[in-house]
C-alpha cells in the first residue's frame, strides 16, 4: 500500500520537469512535449485523489483532460507545420518578427 503523498510528489516532479522544459527548450516541438508532460502530471494527481476518495469523478476529469490535450495537440501541430512552411525554422528564438 502506497501512501497518497508519494503519488503527489511524483506528480509534482513530472509537472516541474514539464515547466522546466517549457522554459529552457528552444525547439517548438520540445516545448509542446513539455506541455503534454505537465498535463500527464496533473492527470496522475486526479487519479490518485480519485482512488483516495473512492469517487470516479477524478477518472471522468482525466478523460476530459485527455480529450482536450488531443484536440490541442492536433491544432498546435498544424500551427507548427504552417509556421515551419513560412519561417523554415523550428527555433522559437528566430520566430520573433511579425513580418518576415
Amino acid at each position, binding site marked *: *500500500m*502506497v*501512501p*497518497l*503523498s508519494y*503519488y*503527489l*510528489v*511524483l506528480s*509534482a*516532479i*513530472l*509537472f*516541474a*520537469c*514539464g515547466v*522546466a522544459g517549457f522554459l*529552457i*527548450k*528552444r*525547439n517548438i*516541438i520540445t516545448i*509542446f*512535449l*513539455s506541455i*503534454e*508532460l505537465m498535463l*500527464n502530471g496533473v*492527470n*496522475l494527481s486526479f*487519479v*490518485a485523489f*480519485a*482512488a*483516495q476518495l*473512492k469517487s*470516479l469523478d477524478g*477518472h*471522468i476529469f*482525466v*478523460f*476530459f483532460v*485527455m*480529450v*482536450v*490535450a*488531443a*484536440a*490541442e*495537440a492536433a*491544432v498546435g*501541430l*498544424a*500551427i*507548427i*507545420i*504552417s509556421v*515551419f*512552411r513560412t519561417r523554415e525554422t*523550428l527555433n522559437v528564438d528566430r520566430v520573433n518578427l511579425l513580418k518576415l
Partner: protein
Amino acid sequence: MLPLVLFFIFAALCVGGAINLLVQKHPINSALSLIVVMGSLALIYLLLGAEFVAAVQVIVYAGAVMVLFVFVIMLLNAGVEERTEHASRVAMVLGVPGLIIGLSLAVWVVSHLAGLDRIAIGGPTVMNGSDVFGNPQAIGHLLFRNFLLPFEVTSILILIAIMGAVVLARREE
C-alpha cells in the same frame, strides 16, 4: 509490499523518462521518452485501480497523440540540434534541478502537514474491487448521466479541432 515495490519501479521509469526528455537534443528522442513516461503512468494507473483510464491513456495518448507528434517530427525533419542562445549555463544547471527539487519538496511538506502520508491507497482493496471501481461500466454510468453535457461539448470541441487542423495545415495553392 508488492504495490510499493511496483510503484517505485514505475515511478523511476517516469522520472527517468521526464529527465531524458529535458536532456536530449533531438526532438525524436524527447518524444520517445515521453512515450515511456506515458506508458509507465498507465501502469501506475493500473496500480490505482483506474483500469479504463489506463487503457485510454495507452490508446489515445501514447497511441494517437504521440503518433501525431512523431509524424510531425519525421515530416519536418528539422531541429536536429538546438542551442539555447543568451542562456547562462550555470543558471540552467542549478535552476532546473532546483525547480524540480523545490516543487517536490514543497508538495512533500504540504502533504505531510495535511496528513496525506498516513493514507495508503492502492493495494488489495482497489485490486479486488475492480467490478465496481474504475471499470468501464461504472465510468459509462457516470459519463452518460451526470457528465452528459461536458461529453457533448467535448465532441463539438473535437470537431472544431479537426476543422482547424485541416485548414491550418493545408498548403496554400
